[in-house]
């Protein structure tokens, strides 16, 4: 029997939070000091932000990091 390997995938609800605030990707990008392309990549799940950027998002939306990001785990056999 092989070893079990756990994969972590970071999910976020940035799109929902942004929609609630009725702001564009560009406006959010300006507020947290990144480019619009980065906000887009984060929303699509193609880019995981650094801890610093995660805290900036947390401060901007006044939510905890756990409210914005969640970890999805999948276990597979090697």
């Amino acid at each position, binding site marked *: 029997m092989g070893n079990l390997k756990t994969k972590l995938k970071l999910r976020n609800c940035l799109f929902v939070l942004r929609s609630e605030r009725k702001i564009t990707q560009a406006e959010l990008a300006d507020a947290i000091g990144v*480019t619009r392309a980065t906000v887009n990549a984060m929303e699509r799940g193609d880019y995981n932000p650094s801890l610093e950027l995660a805290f900036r998002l947390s401060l901007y939306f006044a939510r905890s990091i756990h409210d914005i990001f969640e970890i999805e785990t999948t276990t597979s056999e090697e």
Partner: protein
Amino acid sequence: MKRLEKYIHWYLLIVFPFIVGFLIWESIVIEPAIVNAATLAQKDMIYQNYSGGIWDYAGIIMMVWFALAIITISRLLLSPVYREELLAKLGMIKERDEREVEITGFASKFSMIASIALLLCLLFFNSMSFGLKKYNDHVMGSDGKPKNGTLSLGFGFRMFDSKAIEYVNNDSQKEINYKELPLSKTGIVLLLISWQVGMYYLAARRKFRE
């Protein structure tokens, strides 16, 4: 200062294709005419035909370009901030946020590995030699069997090019002529590989220590 820098960069970029074109024109049109000229008087005529006008202006433009290029290269060597700014501009690198830093890091790593792979290929093909010999008549081999031909594969390495520096030692004079870099093609490739790996190692080590 920034505006002056901008003008210098524009001049270096815009004039560069003209300088390349001028050098090609000089090597295709003027150089053969001078080589084919039978007498010194004919050579003088060619120089006089091209002197004045475009020839002189092109010369001045080229001199200014080379002077500015030397200043820019010296600054590149001496100032790390300027080096990073200019190379980022030349490489069209944008690092506006952490994601773009990650992307440029990935692109740099990829280009470094791709360059090393290419250089290793060049090193291999430049070091090996290959020969194919076909006999018109059958020749008996050392094992007593008839042979049609031979295939030879060899491997040679030469670091320096002895023809690059010419030494003349006559009874009347001693002369040293430096013509080009005294490294062989293999030597240059090896130097580039060592330089790339070495610089990567040094930069990574410095970052790890921070």
